[in-house]
């Protein structure tokens, strides 16, 4: 019997070694295929389009290598990038401030209601994004009670909420809030409550416990949540369009109008490529600084 073991093991490893990677690649294939078809190829096409040159006819462009498209796009719409990132950044910040206590409450005090509370968080997303944003127009209407209340307090610089940057940031915060709450909840829920007990036993104040124990352990959730909020919010233009005014337009509107109306595909593509690129840089700096690249 013992003599048999070496022979069987000596035969088995090569088999396993040979099969393992192949299975791995096979399992990866659908995902990689998806990425290739729906990300890599479109991105390359987008990039090539962004360098095309006009032929004179409207909406027809010839292959080329016209870096000037980027300069033109940036000089004309640069301020919209800045505005988009400011709005998206503010919305992310507000979403984090609102979501963290909520996620904390659901994770630690939710008890048997946890599931229900989570459903309540997601429930609004059952209705269309567009519809919910439209609803805010009614809620924030100039002649409505909300605006009336704040006007009575005299805190509105323009005397209204709708069609101001306040409404746009509020709309972005609202619409992307669930994407902040869920990852936060996921990481807080995993947190072992005994660690908090231990921290208390070691005479840490609640603030110190939060700072030294809870917050660091929830960082993966914070990073995931902020990314899931910030990235789509910077490219969003529905909120700016429906809740904003002509002075609050975001970069998405510029891409849309260039693509659909002017049929200026190179400029629209250049704007899109730059948006992706800027987000990529911002996000990689952010991830590096929060030291959690292995978690995202």
């Amino acid at each position, binding site marked *: 019997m013992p003599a048999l073991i070496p022979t069987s093991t000596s035969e088995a490893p090569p088999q396993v070694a040979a099969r393992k990677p192949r299975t791995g690649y096979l399992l990866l294939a659908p995902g990689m295929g998806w990425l290739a078809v729906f990300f890599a190829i479109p991105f390359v096409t987008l990039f090539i389009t962004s360098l095309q040159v006009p032929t004179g*006819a409207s909406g027809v462009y010839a292959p080329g290598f016209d870096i000037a498209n980027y300069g033109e796009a940036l000089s004309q719409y640069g301020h919209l990038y800045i505005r988009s990132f400011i709005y998206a950044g503010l919305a992310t910040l507000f979403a984090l401030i609102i979501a963290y206590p909520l996620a904390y409450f659901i994770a630690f005090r939710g008890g048997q209601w946890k599931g229900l509370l989570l459903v309540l968080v997601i429930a609004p997303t059952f209705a269309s994004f567009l519809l919910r944003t439209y609803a805010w127009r009614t809620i924030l209407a100039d002649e409505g009670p909300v605006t009336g209340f704040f006007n009575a307090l005299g805190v509105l610089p323009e005397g209204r909420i709708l*069609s101001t940057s306040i409404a746009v940031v509020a709309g972005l915060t609202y619409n992307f809030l669930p994407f902040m709450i869920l990852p936060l909840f996921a990481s807080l829920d995993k947190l072992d409550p005994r660690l908090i007990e231990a921290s208390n036993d070691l005479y840490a104040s609640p603030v110190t416990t939060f700072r030294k124990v809870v917050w660091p352990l929830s960082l993966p959730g914070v990073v995931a949540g902020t990314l899931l909020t910030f990235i789509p919010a910077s490219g969003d233009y529905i909120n700016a369009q429906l809740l904003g005014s*002509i002075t609050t337009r975001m970069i998405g509107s510029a891409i849309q109008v260039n693509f*659909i109306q002017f049929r200026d595909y190179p400029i629209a593509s250049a704007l899109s490529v730059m948006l992706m690129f800027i987000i990529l840089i911002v996000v990689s700096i952010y991830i590096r600084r929060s030291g959690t690249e292995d978690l995202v």
Partner: protein
Amino acid sequence: MISQRPEMVAALAGSMRSSVSRRRLLQAAGISGTAAALAACGAGGGSASDPTQEPTTEETSAAETPKETAAETPTETGPEDLSDVEKVIAWSNWPLYIDYDDEEVGRPTLDAFSQQTGIEVTYNEDINDNNEFFAKVRTQLEQGQDIERDLVVLTDWMAGLWIRSGFAQKLDKANIPNIKNLVDEYYDVSFDPGREYSLPWQSGFGGLAYNVDLLESSLGVSEITTMDQLFDPELKGRITLLSEMQDTMGCMMAWQGADPSNFTDAEFENAIDKLTEIVSTGQVRQVTGNDYINALETGDIIACIGWSGDVFAMDGNYGFSLPESGGMLWSDNMLIPSTATHKKNAEAVMNYYYEPEIAAEVAAWVWYISPVKGAREAMEAIDPELVEVPWIFPTEKELTNSYVFMSLTPEQNEKYQRMFQQAIGL
């Protein structure tokens, strides 16, 4: 068909008052004749805009705009007509731009047409914006691929663009005997002289729309009749403009003393500068398409540039006026796309809607101007009150005070659209 008429009329008379919001993204480019000739817009009136292009035939238009039609231009004959084999037609129109019966859940005139002719109509309310619709189908049209529409309704300037680009089929007038009912002024439009390719569907005015109650509480007046009032600082942040460049810029140019039916680059730029200046003060809340109706209703805006028929069909205390400096007059036109395979059926639809009685039924519901002779008389039978509404049957007063926007070449259009978009924040 005729025996059904009384019931139809009765049903319509009941439903037309309840008509709510309808389509409203339009503008103007080319009714010459009375409308613009009467408009105090300098020598030559509307026909003054003609020299910019006179595409009397496919050949000359192609020659004039070689870039535009550089690709294989579909011929005016179009693909094989399957009308005799397939009794169907697909029609694209703007939302709520045809009579509709809430109770019967149907479109009375259209249903009657199908019963009468056996032609089944697929009616799509999928044109919300000229630019947007064109963007959707343009590539297909350029490549001669079927856009699966046999009839589309486009505003003058866009209709002109289609005709010049060879995207429309020439009408066989033998199939449209009722073309005799076309109001004379519509016949020789600059973008389609002699109506070789298009027939108007409805016309309307672009001008000042306002919420009377809010106007009283803010400005202390019950109507506004000038652009200066629209831009009164008292209304800061409470007004909107139309996203259709022709309507907004037409009103702006007329206000600045230019003639929107015949203007120069400098005059356009001057109006753009004025608009930019006004936008920078925060006066303009938003630039809208359809939404201005909702904003008027909720009270978010007090006044705006809007479209005549819409405002009159609204319930409540709303008003519409043409600015004293001049408003805009536009029409929407039925066209048969170059790729349509049911041309004869489409022509049958055109012919049908040029029956005065049918035209009156549509006008009574949509509250826009019917381009059909005899619609006025037919309206007497439907609702005599409507005959007196100048926005359905305009008098000289309205016509003299409105302009038809100059027809633009595709290059001009693109240039002006860009300047306009930039002025409104993009």
